[in-house]
């Protein structure tokens, strides 16, 4: 199939960027979206042009690095998948595809479609961990945990930190990410011990980095490739009130 791609190109963090149009004439519907970009890059290299820079690593939906904003959606128009899982069969012959980097002040563009997501790491370093020395794995059933709690904790722990929630939110809010990181610990007895400090520090860091405020719009939940629910945000709010 034939596609017109409008891709954001930007030399570096300081340069002014702009959209460049590329014509792709032989895209197979069996291709993955990233393979389609690989094909375009191969062509660009052969033509002695600068290839398009985009983040990717595992290409199996677990590292969270492949975020890009495709036709008005983070990770493209198909729900609950990362860009690397997006297939070209979801596009129509002759379609124009807009490909943009995440847009948020705390996620500055480094180059083309790559943004700097260190802001998420900074939030994690502020408290998204349990500070004990890890020894050997203890017997799992020593501390009883309600099935529902362990399920919910696991469901929030699947967050891959890709940043789609921030990209989707009209306020560029990081609340879904932070709420997932808070919830995965808040629901488990091991996580309760530092719960108070954790939520205080992580929210403080989130605010400091310039993310917007959650207005309960729900775009994050609709776009999250890991289907993290906004009920986590209500839990984050509760944890925050409890901490003060």
């Amino acid at each position, binding site marked *: 199939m034939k596609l017109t791609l409008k891709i954001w190109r930007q030399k570096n963090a300081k340069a002014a960027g702009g*959209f460049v149009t590329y014509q792709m004439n032989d895209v197979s519907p069996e291709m993955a979206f990233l393979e389609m970009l690989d094909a375009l890059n191969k062509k660009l290299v052969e033509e002695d042009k600068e290839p398009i820079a985009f983040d990717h690593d595992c290409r199996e939906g677990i590292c969270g690095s492949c975020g890009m904003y495709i036709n008005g959606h*983070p990770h493209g128009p198909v729900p609950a998948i990362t860009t690397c899982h997006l297939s070209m069969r979801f596009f129509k012959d002759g379609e124009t595809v*807009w490909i943009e980097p995440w847009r948020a002040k705390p996620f500055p563009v480094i180059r083309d479609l790559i943004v700097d997501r260190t802001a998420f790491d900074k939030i994690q370093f502020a408290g998204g961990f349990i500070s004990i020395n890890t020894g050997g794995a203890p017997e799992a059933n020593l501390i009883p945990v309600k099935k529902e709690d362990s399920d919910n904790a696991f469901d929030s722990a699947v967050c891959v930190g890709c940043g789609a929630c921030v990209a989707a939110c009209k306020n560029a*809010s990081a609340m879904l990410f932070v709420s997932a990181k808070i919830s995965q610990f808040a629901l488990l007895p091991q996580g309760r011990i530092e719960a108070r400090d954790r939520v205080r520090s992580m929210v403080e860091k989130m605010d400091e980095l310039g993310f917007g405020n959650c207005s309960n*719009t729900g775009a994050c939940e609709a776009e999250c490739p890991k289907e993290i629910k906004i009920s986590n945000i209500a839990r984050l*709010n509760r944890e925050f*009130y409890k901490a003060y």
Partner: protein
Amino acid sequence: MSKVVFASISKKFTMALAGLFLITFLPVHLAINLMLLKSDPVPFTQAAHFMATFPLVKIMELVLFATILIHVSYGIYLQIVNWLARPVGYAGGSKSETSFFSRFMIWTGATIFTFLVLHFFNFYFVKIGLVKGDPENFYAMAHGLFKVPAYNYIYLICFSVLGFHLYHAFSSAFQTLGLNHRIWTPVVKTVALIYSIIIPAGFAVIPIILWFFR
């Protein structure tokens, strides 16, 4: 201490509480307004007189004004922070599925606030003597206003917008307060829908009846 005061979640907490307070005030105002439909001006005038003079109500009036100010100023502040958080927008637009009215809260809010200013000029400023008029005769003043077609159009538009604002606001406040529940959240959403239709409709019914049927 300053950390909790300036935290984003605290500001939203305050906004949500203020909003819920305003939500409880609307039915009271509506109950009094509905007395305008009686051809006898006495009940309405008595109620208006009571609201203007009873000490506890006067205290509540101050609380109400403070609440409006807090809700509005925090709303504007948070909105500006939100705009600043995305300096460059998306060329391909945003097609994410969202709760529809949540996207326009600042604009529906601004519309309601504009109406409130008009409302103050029409009534409250008369009551405190800033604008001339008879504060003991709000019944006639209201009836007079509802004869002006332009006023009725503005009134009906503003109250529809109020409904849009309330629909998102109601359930959103609960989420912000951390009150999310498998069973109760859908109930809150249903109540929000009913409330955001009934209250504005109740207000709108008054000019419609006075304008078309009297």
